């Protein structure tokens, strides 16, 4: 029972272990508090490449290819999927409505463009002030300049790009064309253009620890610090626009996602809920949700969950099965059910052994309700001991992890208290449900039934 409860609580405790510092990193990386994606961008054509267990996953970054060269085993896990951008943008009208939505301070489109440095696929992104500040005050040791010229760049330090400050790198960018439906696409048939760019900053964006099995059969899992996007080059907005217009002529930017800032972080979830209601056609995630998902599944990127009606459209188009169950939740429920069954089994096996005791208690005047109460309390105590042991052990590990992520003591105390209440509530529920049958069996024993068997 104790082992079962330990397994159950571990998932819960660790799933909450997102430290404050980690949250700040995610917020900076995603450049906002709420992320908005287009359903077309998320769904449709790339689904066939996704692992059969996870049909809603997509990695949107074109740096994925270089990532696979560095970590080929990630591709083998099936957790990652890549497809060229479908380029069905969020409309300018939608961006305008998002900007004026109640509680929203700003809504900026995330501008992306695929490219290459040497043989490495990269994503060209647009920086914002947060990144600039982060480079100066944050964890990047080399950055001491943030004067972005027309083609001066910040590169990701772990993309394999020759990233020394002051280096000149050659960025190759393909041309873009217009598809039949007016949607921009990457035109690989045209010759790409080369741009010289000077490295003015180096950024590191670690996620939490990743674990994976090495290629081949068997072996111990390997643990290492992971990086969300390993091949990125951040450009000043003017530089990004300059390249876009040269490669795509007069095509409008394809806005595939947007980052929103809220004016009051304490209302983040409320605002997100209001947005989901007002923009059912978009996928809307708060940064903590995204961060939690990344942490929980040790993935390089997060899932985007489609609104049901959008999913319907996608599934009609690609005839794929939808798996709506969150795997971790399902496993937790299964383990709780198992723990409950163990408890019930334990209590039921005690019925025969304790017949005499129950008979004596009834002789002495115990009522049916007294027996039921006694058994329920015993079940609760048994389950609680298991849960407390499991919780203490796993919470200790989670706390070490949180402090490792520079979480504040108050936030650790808060999350510990919250998890403790959750675990004990579930323990109470499980113990009540699964002790009920043994309690009824014991309460229904008659004194004569026991005494006759003496």
């Amino acid at each position, binding site marked *: 029972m104790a082992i079962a409860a330990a397994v159950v609580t571990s998932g819960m405790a660790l799933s909450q272990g997102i430290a404050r510092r980690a949250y700040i990193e995610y917020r900076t990386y995603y450049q906002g508090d709420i992320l908005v994606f287009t359903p077309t961008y998320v769904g449709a054509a790339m689904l066939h490449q996704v692992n059969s267990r996870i049909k809603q996953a997509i990695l949107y970054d074109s740096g994925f290819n270089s990532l696979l060269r560095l970590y080929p085993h990630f591709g083998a896990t099936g957790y990652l999927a890549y497809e060229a951008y479908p380029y069905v943008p969020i409309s300018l009208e939608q961006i305008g409505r998002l900007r004026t939505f109640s509680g929203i301070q700003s809504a900026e489109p995330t501008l992306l463009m695929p490219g290459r440095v040497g043989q490495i696929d990269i994503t060209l992104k647009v920086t914002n002030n947060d990144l600039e500040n982060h480079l100066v005050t944050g964890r990047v040791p080399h950055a001491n300049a943030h004067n972005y010229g027309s083609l001066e760049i910040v590169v990701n330090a772990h993309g394999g790009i020759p990233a020394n400050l002051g280096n000149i790198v050659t960025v190759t960018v393909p041309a873009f064309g217009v598809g039949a439906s007016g949607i921009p696409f990457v035109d690989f048939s045209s010759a790409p253009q080369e741009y010289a760019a000077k490295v003015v900053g180096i950024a590191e964006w670690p996620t939490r620890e990743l674990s994976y099995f090495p290629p081949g059969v068997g072996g111990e899992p390997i643990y290492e610090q992971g990086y969300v996007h390993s091949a990125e080059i951040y450009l000043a907005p003017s530089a990004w626009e300059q390249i876009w217009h040269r490669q795509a002529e007069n095509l409008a930017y394809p806005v595939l996602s947007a980052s929103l800032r809220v004016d009051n972080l304490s209302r983040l979830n409320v605002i997100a809920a209001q947005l989901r209601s007002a923009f059912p056609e978009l996928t809307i995630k708060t940064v903590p949700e995204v961060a939690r998902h990344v942490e929980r599944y040790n993935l390089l990127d997060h899932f985007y969950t489609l609104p049901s009606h959008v999913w319907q459209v996608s599934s009609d188009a690609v005839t794929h099965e939808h798996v709506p169950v969150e795997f971790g939740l399902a496993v937790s429920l299964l383990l709780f059910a198992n723990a409950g069954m163990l408890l019930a089994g334990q209590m039921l096996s005690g019925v025969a052994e304790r017949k005499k*005791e129950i008979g*004596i208690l009834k*002789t*002495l*005047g*115990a009522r*049916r309700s*007294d027996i039921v109460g006694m058994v329920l309390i015993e079940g609760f105590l048994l389950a609680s001991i298991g849960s407390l042991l499991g919780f203490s052990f796993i919470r200790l590990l989670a706390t070490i992890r949180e402090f490792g992520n520079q979480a504040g003591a108050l936030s650790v105390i808060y999350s510990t208290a919250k998890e403790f209440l959750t675990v004990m509530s579930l323990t109470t529920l499980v113990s009540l449900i699964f002790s009920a049958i043994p309690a009824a069996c014991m309460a229904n024993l008659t004194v004569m039934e026991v005494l006759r068997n*003496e």
Partner: protein
Amino acid sequence: MNEIIMRTERLNKAFSLGETIYAVSDVSLYIPAGKIVAIVGPSGCGKSTLLSLLGGLDRPMSGDIFLERQSFRMLSEDGLAMLRRRKLGYVFQFFNLIPHLTAIENVMLPMSFIGVSRLNAKKRAAELLAQVGLTKRLNHLPLQLSGGEQQRVAISRALANNPALVLADEPTGNLDSSSKNDVLDLFKMFNAMNGQTFVLITHDASVAGIAQKVVRMVDGRVLEEK
């Protein structure tokens, strides 16, 4: 002391074992208050079944039992449980102590059902165990006690809530002669000291010898009362 603490009206109890066998048949008797009453008879004559009916542990097929004018038939299962905890005490042949509780905890158990505080229960249990000569055995588990000592703990437990009536089913059936005499002396002592009524089921003539009233049973029927 001519009051009647318990009486029965035409009690019947049968078991179906292929054919219907009447363990208790048309039994009407009365138990005088403050006396020791022995119910005697050969094995299988229905003594223990009668005792379980008198103790509210089982229901008769027909007839009724009155304890201080309270009809058993009118009581629900919970009502009978409440009656047992307040007005009845039991002593069994095989002691029936809770094996994982100490002697004093076993005696405290019935008091927990009527809301006696733990402190008072402990005090009363210690007094009772002292009265039966077990002062030095308070914290022993049943398995660490002899048969006679276990039965003395069981008697203390039966008396814990100061019941009006104590029912004992072959209380000396599992004891040697020395322990048997000790137990019988205790019944006499508590009867004389507290005026409590004892009903003893036995087939042992020497046990019946301490009774002021003897009820003889044969084949589920009361043959005679002396």
